[in-house]
């Protein structure tokens, strides 16, 4: 799993690829914590187009991010999830909790 971070203006994008599972929990947290603490970042986007697998721990990791971002008044968006990943997000009711959108 490669994690790539880009900051464009007021929005930060974390691009995930491959298996998004418990094995990346530390790297994922290390990727988003500086963005939560960065006053210039107003929104955090998780780019998921290259994610081919998402486990329950990853859903928990996204919830942890969401609560921490909420405390810093920063919305979290989940971008470009594949059909397989979208189904997992849908079953977990994430469409009612996160901003889920396609940009491509």
């Amino acid at each position, binding site marked *: 799993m490669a994690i790539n971070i880009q900051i464009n203006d007021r929005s930060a994008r974390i691009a995930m690829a491959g298996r998004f599972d418990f094995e990346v929990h530390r790297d994922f947290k290390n990727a988003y914590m500086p963005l939560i603490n960065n006053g210039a970042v107003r929104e955090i986007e998780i780019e998921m187009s290259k994610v081919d697998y998402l486990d329950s721990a990853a859903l928990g990791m996204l919830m942890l991010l969401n609560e*921490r971002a909420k405390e810093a008044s920063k919305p979290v968006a989940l971008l470009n999830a594949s059909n397989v990943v979208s189904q997992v997000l849908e079953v977990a*009711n994430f469409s009612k909790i996160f901003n889920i959108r396609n940009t491509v």
Partner: protein
Amino acid sequence: MELVEWNESYSVGNVLMDAHHRIFFETIKEFSEFPDKNNHEAIKQRIEFLIEYAAMHLSAEEKLMLKANYPGLDGHKAVHDAFVQELLSIKESFDKDQTSITADKILQIMQDWLVTHIVGSDKRYMPYVQKLQV
């Protein structure tokens, strides 16, 4: 261990709390299926993650109860605090001596607490939280 799956009977009338609970159950299940139960470091990381997740969830739930003016908040929060303390104490014992408790036993304690707590305590804030969403 006997695993519990979230179903509508566990709903507390709030989308976020229901999603939190469901992920809690499913992550316990996922970790219970981890094949290398003798890998102390791997088990330790999973326990730490579940404690972090539990603390996040309980804090979010307390904020929701406060927003909904739930009169039982103080007592409910005390139960949460006691659970987090229990988990930290279990983790401390496990860190010192991995034979003190099995990974499955820790997961079982978490799952049992969650079931009892949802049914016995969380359901009581349901009418207050539902009013909030109307």
